[in-house]
């Protein structure tokens, strides 16, 4: 078998037998939503099943992250037929996958302590934010064009698009404009390190 150009998130979790770290979670969210929003902009919105899995999230050697339809090989991507999911359904599914990747290997009676911004992002993506307004701190990135004096309205209460997710991920960094390069580098490093481990373990075997 020749060198692999892509690994699924499931491959990565199984190889390490550990959860991903928070920075990797931010990076996979940003990169995956970048791919999905570009697909949409090009009018190439692929039909996607309602329930996505970590096996469908593919990290590439160059740090790109793509989302493939279920149960097919890389070469068949996009050729299978599925019922179409809405953008918010895909985001919800992605949020759940990312949470499970952060929670990987933990017992059912245990809960990982996440940093508040990442927990908020996942809460918003997975659409599990409480409706009572108790979780309204923090994010302004996804509401463009609002005036400064209207802070309450600027606080995001829901994610509606891939771009909203990307803006929240960018706002997590000290310099938002660095987001594309930074998150690509994080995913590239995750791929490289995982391949290094994969190669090493293969040699041992």
């Amino acid at each position, binding site marked *: 078998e020749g060198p692999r150009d892509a690994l699924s998130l499931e491959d990565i979790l199984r190889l390490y037998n550990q959860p991903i770290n928070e920075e990797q979670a931010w990076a996979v969210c940003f990169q995956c939503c970048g791919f999905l929003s570009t697909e949409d902009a090009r009018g190439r919105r692929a039909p996607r099943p309602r329930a996505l899995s970590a096996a469908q999230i593919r990290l590439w050697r160059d740090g790109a992250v793509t989302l493939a339809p279920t149960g097919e090989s890389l070469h068949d991507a996009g050729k299978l037929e599925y019922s179409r999911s809405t953008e918010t359904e895909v985001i919800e599914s992605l949020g759940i996958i990312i949470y499970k990747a952060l929670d990987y290997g933990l017992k059912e009676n245990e809960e990982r302590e996440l940093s508040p911004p990442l927990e908020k992002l996942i809460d918003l993506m997975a659409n599990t934010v409480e409706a009572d307004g108790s979780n309204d701190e923090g994010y302004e990135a996804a509401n463009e064009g609002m005036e400064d004096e209207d802070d309450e309205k600027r606080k995001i209460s829901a994610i509606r698009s891939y771009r909203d997710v990307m803006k929240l991920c960018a706002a997590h960094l000290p310099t938002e404009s660095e987001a594309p390069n930074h998150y690509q580098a994080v995913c590239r490093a995750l791929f490289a390190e995982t391949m290094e*481990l994969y190669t090493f373990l293969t040699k041992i075997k």
Partner: protein
Amino acid sequence: EEVCRQKKGKSLYKIKPRHDSGIKAKISMKT
């Protein structure tokens, strides 16, 4: 093999008891 795996992938995080109103419970209800 397991030592290599853990050394390579070591990530630090805190674990707390699962809480009924925590994100894990909310995500579990979704799935």
